[in-house]
């Protein structure tokens, strides 16, 4: 028995170490950005393993992004996508990768596809339109994934709104993205206006006005300049909706 005691000690120590590691991993896991393993498979062996192993994740993600430009210039969709995915997977908290990957997919790749099929003169307009929508949808999928994993959602929401409106032509969806962006603390000044306009243009005029009015009263009016341009637009909406005087935003002292 004495002969086996040291080996037993090793087993006990490994058991203790393993249990402690399990407990510690549960606690530190949220502090370590998750690596999207499946997304790395196409590019493994190109220095990516170094990033997967721990340190240098940011650096390897940057290098992968630079490499994706090579494929972008060649209009090589699979290569470009693989390296963009690698950057996103290695450093999922970096908003830049998600945003630009979505825009490349949503904006550029449809053009590559049209060019591949013979060019704008050869591909029928309805096919072109279908391709723009198809790739915009893919771009929005990237945005949605990025929203789950990246830090700094606002820019992603704005990019989502841009793709939904510009390429997918889905105004309610675009309005929804801009609404979320407008609600963020670091909302850009134009997000609320875009949200209201897209809802308005989609036919949801009442809803658009009410949301925009509430937003202006709570978040824009308290600002130093009172966002006069937005009030001008709200007045146009009130006029078009034929609202009574009491239903309108009270006249502001500084308003002309």
């Amino acid at each position, binding site marked *: 028995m004495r002969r086996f005691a040291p080996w037993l000690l090793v087993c006990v120590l490994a058991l203790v170490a393993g249990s*402690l590691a399990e407990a510690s991993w549960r606690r530190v896991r949220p502090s370590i950005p998750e690596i999207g393993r499946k997304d790395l498979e196409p590019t493994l062996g190109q220095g990516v393993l170094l990033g997967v192993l721990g*340190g240098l994740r940011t650096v390897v993600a940057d290098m992968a992004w630079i490499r994706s430009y090579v494929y972008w210039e060649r209009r090589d969709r699979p290569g470009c996508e693989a390296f963009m995915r690698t950057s996103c997977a290695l450093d999922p908290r970096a908003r830049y990768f998600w945003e630009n990957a979505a825009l490349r997919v949503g904006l550029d790749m449809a053009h590559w596809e049209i060019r591949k099929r013979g060019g704008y003169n050869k591909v029928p307009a309805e096919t072109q339109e279908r391709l723009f929508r198809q790739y915009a949808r893919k771009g929005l999928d990237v945005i949605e994934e990025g929203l789950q994993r990246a830090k700094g959602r606002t820019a992603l929401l704005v990019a989502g709104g841009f793709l939904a409106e510009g390429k997918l032509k889905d105004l309610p969806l675009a309005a929804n993205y801009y609404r979320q962006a407008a609600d963020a603390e670091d909302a850009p000044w134009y997000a609320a206006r875009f949200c209201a306009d897209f809802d308005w243009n989609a036919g949801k005029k009442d809803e658009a006005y009410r949301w925009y009015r509430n937003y202006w009263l709570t978040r824009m009016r308290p600002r130093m300049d009172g966002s006069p341009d937005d009030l001008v637009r709200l007045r146009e909406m009130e006029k078009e909706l034929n609202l009574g005087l009491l239903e309108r935003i009270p006249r502001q002292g500084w308003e002309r």
Partner: protein
Amino acid sequence: MKASLRRMLWISRITFLEAVRQRFFAFLLVLSAAMVLSSVSFRVFDFGHGELKFIADFGFGGMFFFGSVLAVVMTAQLFFSEIDNRTALTLLAKPLSRAEFLLGKFCGAWAVLGVFVVVLAALQGTVLWAREQELLSLADPAAKLAPAFNLEGLLQLVLLQWLRLGVVISIVLAISALARTFLFAVVVGALAVVAGQLQWIAQDAFLRPTDSQLYAAFLWVSTRVIPNLQQFNLADALVLGSTGVDDGAILVVVLSGLAYLLAYLTLGSLIFRRREI
């Protein structure tokens, strides 16, 4: 006990002296230091990260990578130089146990890597602090930006990285005690480090429910045998405080690292005890 500690101390002292005189150590230290110092220049290749985050990742990445290389190659070299040059014959013919010899080697190699980590962390801290001050002075004073660089976090990271390298050294010593050649020890040691860095995949899988008892048993064993080295990579959270770390988590990580270290050192001693010199 006191005599045993004294013998280990002497072995570690000579091991330390031997290691710091190696060109390999100096080369990797200079290379890593150059990487840390040049990180500010390389930030032009950065996309979408905070500038400090990029600098930190670049520098700490060098510390992680070259530290691992040093821990694997230097430890195996220090062990096999004693065996191949037969200095181990002279030493082990004295009233020095195999465990004392191995622990002495461990302490010496760990001390060298302590110097490596502290020097690089000091450089990295200086670079981060200086760049942050520069950025803060350029920023709009009205924005009242809070400094992100956390010195206390840096000290915690130094401890964690040193401990991670300690676990690597203990694994390499256990492998060296079994290996017949230096090359075998280095290759298997490097594979063990890769496995340790990827162990979290098994750890994550183990934490999820599964129907297969066999698969669960396999995951249970692999998460106990292979240490999770990824849990020490908390540079982001600790030094720049981007996500923060759960209170007390560091303590559990340290305890887990120490337990692995002891387990592998005990295993190494047991294997080495049977080795014929």
